[in-house]
């Protein structure tokens, strides 16, 4: 018996010696981190998962005891589609979020350029002041903006919503572009100037191509923020220019809550941006860590 035990330990010993205690500790840490990561991801994803699931239930199933087992149905989807034209809302969302992003970039690129390369004593203060406007509750300016929109005939127009979204995202877009531009070696732009580039040529031939990853991720973020925005879209649009956030909201009120239909509508509203984000996530991460890894 002793002999057997002796042999077992003898054969086990070399195998154990193959992995050092430090390596084993590291592997344990890795496993722990993986579990933690998955845990957090599941917690974050669970509501979305549940929403998608609920969209395939009947209204009765949806309010019944939570259960993973049910007979899936497209009933809610057909019902939702028959009540409101999804494509109209979706098109509004696309136009407004991409339009506002484009407009924001057009304004922000020259501003960030001048702040990054021709700074004054007040540049930093200006940037912080711009960002500080993001700390105000939007509702604080709802009345003035509403009145302005009414007087200029912008209520329930895509143009109006585009303007509001542009203004809403401008501080963060300028700030992000500013940090990307600042990372660009000054020498390269000066070399361009020696080579005869004017400001516009400098921006077009050197700045834009060299900071494209940063500009792309800034644009993506702006699109996502605009797509998900609900406060202004609910208050400034009714039918003509209403985007998908208003579409979701339209299923939540008058006749009480219909969970399955609401879930179906929500799933349809987030699907495009989810797919868009998934396709561009590599670009997003690359852009957001652009300065860090360089």
């Amino acid at each position: 018996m002793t002999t057997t035990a002796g042999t077992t330990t003898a054969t086990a010993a070399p195998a154990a010696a193959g992995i050092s205690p430090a390596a084993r500790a590291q592997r344990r840490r890795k496993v722990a981190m993986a579990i933690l990561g998955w845990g957090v991801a599941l917690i974050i994803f669970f509501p979305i998962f549940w929403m998608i699931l609920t969209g395939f239930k009947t209204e009765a199933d949806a309010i019944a005891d939570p259960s993973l087992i049910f007979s899936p149905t497209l009933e809610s989807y057909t019902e939702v589609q028959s009540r409101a034209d999804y494509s109209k809302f979706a098109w509004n969302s696309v136009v407004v979020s991409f339009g506002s992003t484009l407009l924001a970039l057009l304004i922000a690129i020259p501003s960030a350029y001048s702040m990054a390369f021709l700074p004054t004593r007040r540049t930093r203060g200006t940037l912080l002041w711009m960002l500080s406007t993001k700390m105000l509750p939007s509702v604080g300016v709802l009345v003035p903006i509403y009145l302005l929109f009414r007087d200029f005939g912008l209520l329930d127009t895509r143009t109006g919503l585009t303007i509001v979204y542009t203004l809403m995202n401008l501080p963060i877009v300028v700030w992000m572009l500013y940090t990307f531009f600042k990372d660009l070696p000054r020498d390269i732009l000066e070399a361009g100037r020696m080579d005869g580039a004017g400001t516009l040529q400098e921006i077009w031939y050197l700045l834009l191509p060299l900071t494209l990853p940063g500009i792309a991720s800034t644009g993506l973020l702006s699109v996502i923020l605009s797509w998900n925005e609900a406060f202004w879209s609910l208050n400034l649009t009714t039918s003509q220019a209403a985007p998908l956030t208003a579409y979701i909201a339209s299923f939540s009120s008058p006749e009480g809550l219909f969970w399955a239909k609401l879930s179906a509508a929500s799933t349809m509203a987030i699907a495009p941006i989810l797919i868009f984000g998934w396709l561009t996530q590599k670009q997003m991460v690359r852009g957001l860590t652009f300065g860090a890894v360089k």
Partner: protein
Amino acid sequence: MATLQLNQVTKSFGDTHVIKGVDLEVKDREFVVFVGPSGCGKSTLLRMIAGLESTSSGDLLIDGQRINDLGPAERGLAMVFQSYALYPHMTVEDNMGFSLKLAGVSASERRKKVDEAARILQLDPLLKRKPKALSGGQRQRVAIGRAIVRNPSIFLFDEPLSNLDAALRVQMRIELARLHEELQATMIYVTHDQIEAMTMADKIVVLQGGIVEQVGSPMELYHHPRNRFVAGFIGSPKMNFLPATVRSAGTQGVEVGLPGGGTAHIPVVGSEVAEGQALELGVRPEHLQLTGKGPLSGRVSVLERLGGQTSLYVEMDGELITLMADGDVTYRVGDEVHFGFEPGRAHLFTADGMALESLERHPLASLTRQDNRAANEVGA
């Protein structure tokens, strides 16, 4: 034909005066080197010439034309940056042709000029590559190529070799000198490395604290430094400075008392000094000679054998004196050594750092690199 003239040029950033009134004349085809310790204003001065920094006051003239108000591109200059500043997203070919593209030169013409520059710099096989696929030396050559393509009236170099390793630096130094010959262009070169300055320049401009300390040929600065700063900055290893007292001064020179009790008769103009005045004696390490019993003596503190030469660091009255001796000297640390110097090789500096002028000018003092070439041609 391209000359550059600076008249009382100054530059201030707020209350900080970086360049404090510089006068300078750069002749056609001259290779001028700005040298000085970091922060002396040499790069700022170059950037002012380039047009990348504005000039606070004074005039910049190229071929007699005032260029203060012209933009960098309109001045017809080209600059090679310390970091090379290549456009990372363009191929070598596009990097070199960028200025022509902006100027609206046709693609075929562009191609021709780029090819020509690539031939001079042996960049032909690399034209389709991006900068990140090049070595440091190749990037440097592309940066120079970008300058050549513009066919500038004056080339500006801002410490172009400081990012290269020592061996490559020597090689590029030779290449640049050859390029200067081949292009027959006016070049202004900034460096903190006095060896680069000595080896490449026709004319060296020594800057310190925003003022020009001295302008002259390398040999002039070496043999006739105007003040203690230039004397210490030019030459490697650094010049030794010893305290000395005036014993007598006359038309034939100045007799000084040395530490340790010896005396020396230095052939410099003595009209400005009086007996008993405290001066500083400057002697270069290579001009100190080990002798059986020289006027100076000390104990060897450190010994560096370089093979052909040996650097001795001798402690004398608490000061370390550097001495370049033969490679085969047999001294060891702790040995007592005696040494002296040829009086004609020594310099005297007054308390305010100004050098007393030599009675005789060194025969090579006005020699430039161009003279070297002329001599060779006569020899051949």
